């Protein structure tokens, strides 16, 4: 016989199905309500329940059952209000009364497709294990036969070149009076080349990032250049740049990006006549490692006044960037023309390079660019790269890891003798587990001329909660609890741009020391050890074989 209240709660989820279960302690909670106020997902809410309590008040035990009405913090079992594990509740709780706990046996992705909408999120591939980069060790240690260098005493030059480097045979040089001099009558086009710090901040747009976050990064980068003498550069991401920055002398530290939506480029092109400095370079985005072959979308609710102004669009409309450039019909013509057009815009004084997602087709792209004398570099974004918004399936299952993709491309350049002509920029997963210096150094030794970071700097400079256990990762919703990826002033005012800038400076200064601590014992200091593959080893024979490096155990 069935009771009056039905007990079959089918078609409801249990807390066990959720990736994070909120542990709330009644005895510590003072019911201030801060946790429920900050929860970006409304995953917890105040609730009222009736409790049956046994009490005994006299000197002898005389227990009585008492029913009382109490307020509690209740976790929702609505899949739309899942706890992301961001732990903003813990951050604001004065009494340590609440924290989310990861539930490794959750069934979240079985259910996160209500209305037929696949799960979308921000962040990067949810793969918490060791990446290939983390399985590489620096094993060629200089000792006795060749003294290790001193990271604190010797001169270190941790710099790289961004731009097409002419082979020595093609340099317009002539010998006069026993000295080499530039032959100005040769008429030879000398591509522009920048000397930069080899770790750069990759493309994250104003729009994807909050104004405070972007400003903090920009200020940090500028400080590093102007005060610390470290030529760190930063890519704008698609969506333009503030006009006052475009017209300032600081634009030389930035790389405006043009992508398939061309957002922001009306404003950039209009600003060209008023620019007093050239940008560092121009990046043409053809792909992104986190969501290869997929486009972008800035949701209407993120397109507020500032974004609309910078991007040159009306407020409150969805801004889709197509998966591919609509003008791109062939790499031989359309891409070449696009590269040349961007060169022409700045009088051939600014390097222009494409960025692609890691792919087995990367070598084909590379070989085309090798034969295009205007291509200034190739940036390859591996599948551990981050994004502000993408389908979960794209992030988790699509793309190519950076290590073997980069290595293959570098060795292809070596086979052609072009390894110093077209710099390879590696991105996608550097510093995934916090080991930025080690990952970056390994990428240099596999053949990268520079390394681009995104997610790492968000985590290190602004405390982004996201991780590979799908913690937080709600960048796409505009509800970033840290104020990093939101356009909601109530959220981004939590983020102090000055603190972000200070952290950017700290991160790069510390990175610089760590890179020296890697290079010095390996006997390298004057030039970046690009392609110094005898310096690294893998702890897995298959990885070692694939990357053509040694295996150690």
């Amino acid at each position, binding site marked *: 016989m069935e009771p009056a209240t039905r007990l079959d709660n089918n078609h409801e989820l249990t807390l066990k199905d959720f990736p994070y279960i909120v542990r709330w302690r009644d005895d510590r909670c003072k019911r201030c309500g801060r946790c429920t106020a900050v929860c970006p997902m409304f995953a917890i809410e105040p609730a009222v329940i009736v409790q049956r309590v046994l009490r005994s008040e006299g000197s002898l035990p005389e227990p009585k059952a008492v029913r009382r009405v109490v307020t509690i913090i209740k976790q929702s079992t609505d899949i739309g209000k899942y706890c992301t594990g961001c732990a903003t509740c813990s951050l604001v709780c004065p009494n340590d009364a609440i924290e989310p706990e990861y539930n490794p046996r959750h069934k979240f992705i079985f259910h996160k497709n209500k209305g037929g909408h696949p799960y979308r999120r921000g962040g990067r591939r949810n793969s918490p294990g060791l990446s290939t980069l983390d399985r590489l060790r620096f094993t060629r240690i200089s000792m006795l036969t060749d003294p290790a260098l001193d990271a604190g005493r010797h001169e270190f030059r941790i710099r790289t070149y961004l731009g097409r480097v002419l082979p020595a045979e093609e*340099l317009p040089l002539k010998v006069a009076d026993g000295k080499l001099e530039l032959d100005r009558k040769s008429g030879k086009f000398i591509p522009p080349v920048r000397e930069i710090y080899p770790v750069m901040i990759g493309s994250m747009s104003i729009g994807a990032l909050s104004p405070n976050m972007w400003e903090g990064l920009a200020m940090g980068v500028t400080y590093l250049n102007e005060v610390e003498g470290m030529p760190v550069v930063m890519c704008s991401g698609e969506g333009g740049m503030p006009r006052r920055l475009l017209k300032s002398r600081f634009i030389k530290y930035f790389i405006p990006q043009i992508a398939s939506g061309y957002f922001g480029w009306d404003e950039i092109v209009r600003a060209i006549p008023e620019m007093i400095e050239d940008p560092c370079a121009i990046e043409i985005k053809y792909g992104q490692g986190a969501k290869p072959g997929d486009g972008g979308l800035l949701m209407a609710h993120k397109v507020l006044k500032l974004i609309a102004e910078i991007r040159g669009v009306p407020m409150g409309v969805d801004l889709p960037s197509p998966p591919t450039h609509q003008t791109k019909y062939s790499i031989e013509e359309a891409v070449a023309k696009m590269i040349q057009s961007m060169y022409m815009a700045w009088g051939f004084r600014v390097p222009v390079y494409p960025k692609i997602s890691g792919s087995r087709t990367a070598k084909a792209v590379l070989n085309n660019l090798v034969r295009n004398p205007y291509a200034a570099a190739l940036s390859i974004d591996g599948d551990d790269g981050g994004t502000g918004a993408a389908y979960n399936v794209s992030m988790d299952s699509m793309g190519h890891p950076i290590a073997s993709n980069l290595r293959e491309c570098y060795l292809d350049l070596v086979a052609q003798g072009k390894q*110093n002509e077209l710099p390879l920029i590696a991105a996608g997963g550097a510093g995934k587990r916090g080991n930025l210096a080690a990952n970056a150094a390994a990428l240099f030794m596999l053949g990268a001329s520079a390394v681009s970071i995104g997610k790492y700097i968000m985590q290190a400079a602004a405390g982004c909660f996201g991780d590979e256990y799908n913690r937080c990762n709600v960048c796409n919703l505009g509800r970033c609890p840290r104020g990093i990826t939101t356009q909601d002033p109530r959220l981004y005012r939590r983020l102090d741009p000055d603190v972000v800038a200070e952290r950017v400076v700290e991160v790069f200064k510390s990175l610089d020391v760590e890179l020296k601590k890697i290079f010095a014992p390996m006997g390298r200091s*004057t030039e970046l050890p690009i*392609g110094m593959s*005898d310096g690294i080893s893998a702890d897995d024979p298959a990885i070692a074989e694939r990357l053509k490096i040694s295996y150690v155990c």
Partner: protein
Amino acid sequence: MCRLVAITSDEYFSPVENILALETMKEGHDGSGMGLILKGLGGEFEELKDYPILSGICSREGINKLDSYMDMEGFRLKYAWTPKTRHVRGIRARDYYFARVYDYPDVYRDRSFEDKEALLLRARIRLRNLGRDDESIIVFSFYPDIITLKEVGDPLQLGTFFGLDKSPLRAKIIFAQGRQNTNYAINLYACHPFFIQGYGTMTNGENTAFIPIREFLSSRGFQGYIGYNSDSEVFCHILHYICKRLGYPLFYYKDVITPLNEAEISQRPDSEAVRFLKMSLRPLCIDGPNCVIGFTPDGTCFMVQDAKKLRPGVVGGVKGKYGLMSEECGLDSAIPHRDKSRDIFPMKYDMVIVRPGAGEVEIWNQLHG
């Protein structure tokens, strides 16, 4: 650390002087091999300066292969020299050590020297490949006015083994290196000094940037950039690439292997060019610890240090005879009656140069260009 002894003189002298200087510098085990290059040859070779000399070692089978190849190419043997080897305990004698003078094939008689050089290089590589698998042929150099001798063993014992103390073999420039025990099981091709088309070098120290440099040189499309059994062979090929292939003056060798920083470059009168070299030849930057001693086809000898000056090196002598060595005691052995106060210890920016005839020492400073 290897011992380096280069002596340049306006008079012919015996390689025994180099070997004795090596012996003076010896500390510990020096038996991993010795290499000798003689340039500006005297004695029986003085009249044969226009003809290429093939230096190497063959087994009994190898010499037949070598002869048939040289015949096939049209080279005609003019003169053959072999050291009068003696049994020395600890040195494994090979069948046939030689320096053979050839006349060019008839079709090359009126060709340019560049064509002849290319032919000699091709022939040397072909011979090297012919003997690679069974070590039946080992060839070190094939070039006019150059003899190369190499073998594994203690330098002094090797001098006795080759009978150099009694040999009339003389030259005006002799480079010698004694290798230490970090490389005992060596291939003779790993033994310094290295030589290619008139350029020779020997080096102290490990080359930490070896792989990127090797990959860069190997991919220049020049068939002579092979080998690299030693990480130091690249120093010779860089010199050849800079001076011969690119045609740059010798000083730029220093700019390429130890590039200046931007602030320093901007002080140079040729800053534009130096900046381009730094970019375009970035993979050729060495990071030391290395002391490189080299010579060019005209007989100019030089010494340069890595940018941190991590190895010893000294240049000194008297007018008409100078030594470029890794340690001062070696110099004391070879040129004892010099003014020691004028010895030069090259530092990070210096290229010390002794022109043919050993009249004087020049110091070129990289900062000033």
